[in-house]
């Protein structure tokens, strides 16, 4: 298909230049990159906040900051990481860049709406940042905004709530765009079951974004009304019900975990077949496990509230469903392992990240079951065990999948290749640092160290210090990885169109892709992941 014979072929990166051409571009690839740069910047800010919190916990009592500053930091760290980084993360970046290409389309269904979503996202992100610094009074409620404290706290909670509301709106619009794109824009011959699995995971994700986000939207509006108009839906002194808030909040915020993790699963499902040169094992079960996770994941929110005084029946029910949602997740793990089994496994950096994703996600998943059991939950609720668990899922899962994705698609996005050795070393730092940072928190969590505490009993110091050392190693790994990628995005060796011998559509077009993706819309005649196809030989 690449028949251009000019010296510098025109592609989506260079067909127009200048900042303005980016800010007004409705090209899904450019919008995806704009999301990536924004998200990367916010990720670095929130990671530095995380490092500062870890330094603070080197010694009991005050080390480098006051307790109030610490409260503000874990709140802003949470708000940025959850609402700005991991919820949009994979879908907005790699979904935008690769969904249309992988289904053989020239763009998403609503390109202008796509650009609009980015502006909504930026507005929300800037509001979130503003809430941190306005009046030197950052919110200190935690990212969950639990009432009644969030209704009474004298800090910039309203700004932070508005930010979360606006970001939710951006997320809804992206989800809507993707659903319509997948329904209406697939190339001729691409039936539902000929669609690659990353688009499938985005499809399941988009439905959650669409159906769950409005609930948190209205809930945050109610808290805003509570603070500004004193309506009191959640304030017991006016007759409101704080537990009702927790329900409404988690009806969204638990499915939001699946908004983060489903695309992550989709990414590694692309990587395993490519680096094993073998069709994915169990295509149909993977599709249905994605849909099952999206469906069941919608009904497990109550497991965040086992200690909030909900009835025994509902605790039983939510615990049961929590165990149920582990089944489709486990199906996927077996599929990934079986895909590698008997394949010609090529341990390149993307696969390295994808395999560590399985490792970390499995630890996160099993500890999730520990928390989903009614008896152990009482002991572990609101301890550092919970912190370790969700970082294993969110950072170890979604974060490492993001790293896997950027190393996988980097040559396609930039048309250049990063340094493998450098990438492997940064992987080593990230993997070791990650485990050293979060694993000790499981241990001290079981021993009774509460989460979100500024101070701690000296008996926890060994764990806290180990964890802080891990944080430094992790940050070193991040710096190595980012500099490798940034440096080689401009100066790396020119990458071929299909460096990994992938078979999905994005590898069949030039790198970087031309502005319109395809000169001619491809006609799909067979299922994806068929490695006996002539072009790989």
């Amino acid at each position, binding site marked *: 298909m690449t028949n251009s014979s000019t010296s510098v072929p025109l592609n989506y990166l260079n067909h127009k230049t200048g900042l303005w051409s980016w800010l007004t571009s409705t090209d899904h690839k450019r919008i995806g990159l704009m999301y990536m740069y924004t998200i990367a910047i916010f990720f670095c800010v929130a990671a530095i906040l995380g490092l500062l919190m870890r330094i603070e916990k080197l010694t009991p009592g005050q080390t480098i900051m006051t307790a109030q500053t610490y409260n503000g930091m874990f709140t802003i760290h949470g708000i940025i990481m959850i609402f700005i980084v991991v919820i949009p993360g994979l879908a907005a970046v790699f979904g935008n860049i690769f969904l249309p290409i992988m289904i053989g389309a020239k763009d998403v269904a609503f390109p202008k709406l796509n650009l609009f979503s980015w502006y909504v996202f930026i507005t929300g992100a800037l509001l979130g940042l503003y809430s941190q610094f306005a009046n030197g009074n950052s919110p200190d409620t935690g990212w969950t905004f639990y009432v009644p404290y969030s209704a009474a706290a004298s800090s910039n909670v309203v700004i932070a709530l508005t930010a979360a509301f606006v970001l939710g709106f951006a997320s809804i619009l992206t989800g809507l765009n993707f659903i319509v794109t997948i329904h209406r824009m697939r190339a001729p011959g691409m039936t539902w079951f000929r669609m690659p699995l990353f688009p499938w995971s985005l499809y399941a994700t988009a439905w959650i974004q669409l159906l769950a986000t409005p609930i948190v939207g209205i809930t945050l509006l109610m808290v805003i009304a509570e603070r500004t108009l*004193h309506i009191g839906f959640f304030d017991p002194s006016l007759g409101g019900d704080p537990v009702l808030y927790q329900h409404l909040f988690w009806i969204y915020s638990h499915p939001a975990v699946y908004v983060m993790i489903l695309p992550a699963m989709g990414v590694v499902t692309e990587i395993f077949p490519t680096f094993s040169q073998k069709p994915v094992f169990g295509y149909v079960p993977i599709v249905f496990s994605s849909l099952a996770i999206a469906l069941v994941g919608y009904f497990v929110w109550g497991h965040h509230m086992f200690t909030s005084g909900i009835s025994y029946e509902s605790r039983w029910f939510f615990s049961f469903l929590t165990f149920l949602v582990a089944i489709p997740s486990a199906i996927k793990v077996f599929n990934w392992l079986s895909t590698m089994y008997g394949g010609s496994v090529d341990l390149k950096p993307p696969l390295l990240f994808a395999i560590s994703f399985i490792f970390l996600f499995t630890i996160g998943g099993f500890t999730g079951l520990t928390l989903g059991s009614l008896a152990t939950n009482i002991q572990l609720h609101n301890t550092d065990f919970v912190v370790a668990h969700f970082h294993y899922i969110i950072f170890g899962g979604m974060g490492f999948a993001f790293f896997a994705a950027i190393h996988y698609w980097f040559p396609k996005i930039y048309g250049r290749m990063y340094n493998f050795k450098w990438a492997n070393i940064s992987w080593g730092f990230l993997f070791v640092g990650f485990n050293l940072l979060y694993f000790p928190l499981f241990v001290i969590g079981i021993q009774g160290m509460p989460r979100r505490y500024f101070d701690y009993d000296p008996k926890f110091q060994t764990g806290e210090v180990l964890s802080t050392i891990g944080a430094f190693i992790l940050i070193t790994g991040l710096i190595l990885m980012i500099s490798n990628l940034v440096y080689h995005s401009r100066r790396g060796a020119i990458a071929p169109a299909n460096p990994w011998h992938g078979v999905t559509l994005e590898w069949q077009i030039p790198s970087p892709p031309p502005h319109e993706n395809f000169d001619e819309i491809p006609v799909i005649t067979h299922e994806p992941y068929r490695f006996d196809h002539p072009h790989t030989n």
Partner: protein
Amino acid sequence: MSTNEHSEFIDSDTGKLGMWLFLFTELFLFGGLFIVYSVMRSKYADDFHHAALELNAFVGATNTVVLLVSSMTVAMSLTAIQQKRGGKAMGLLFITLLLAGVFMVNKYFEWGHKFGLHLYPGSDVMKSLPHGEIMFFGLYYMMTGLHALHVIIGGILLTIVILKIKSGKINSEHYLLQENGALYWHLVDLIWIFLFPLLYLIT
């Protein structure tokens, strides 16, 4: 063909699918309030009964009729544009806007009356009421307020549609925006159909 911008043309089915999905999210947005309403109603059944007597069912019913008629005129305008009668379509949309105005004026007097009685969130009168009545009025303001916001947004959308019919951008061939505007307007109507019995009729 690969040198120009991406095609800006969105076909009608694609556009409508997007709109329908968006309307679902709007329903879920109000759905959150309906959940809070049902929880509070079951918790404070008696207080809700007393507080609901304060609302004037006649004003509510008038507004229901006004909105239903406006939904009809917006649907008729769609038929008119399909029949290439742009002037008639604009006229019908204008009537829709007028009816939206009537609705808002009614709402203004209704809220104004309550404010006159010091029945607004945070007032001393309100704070002295039983908990359930505070919740009822809180929900009343939140639900009708959010709905009124949607009336205003819908009104703006229909105004844009009128301008585009005038400039010929919406015509008997391409009327996706008008269809979507009409769908949105029906949503505004639909939500009111639920709000009306929940707040005014169940006493």
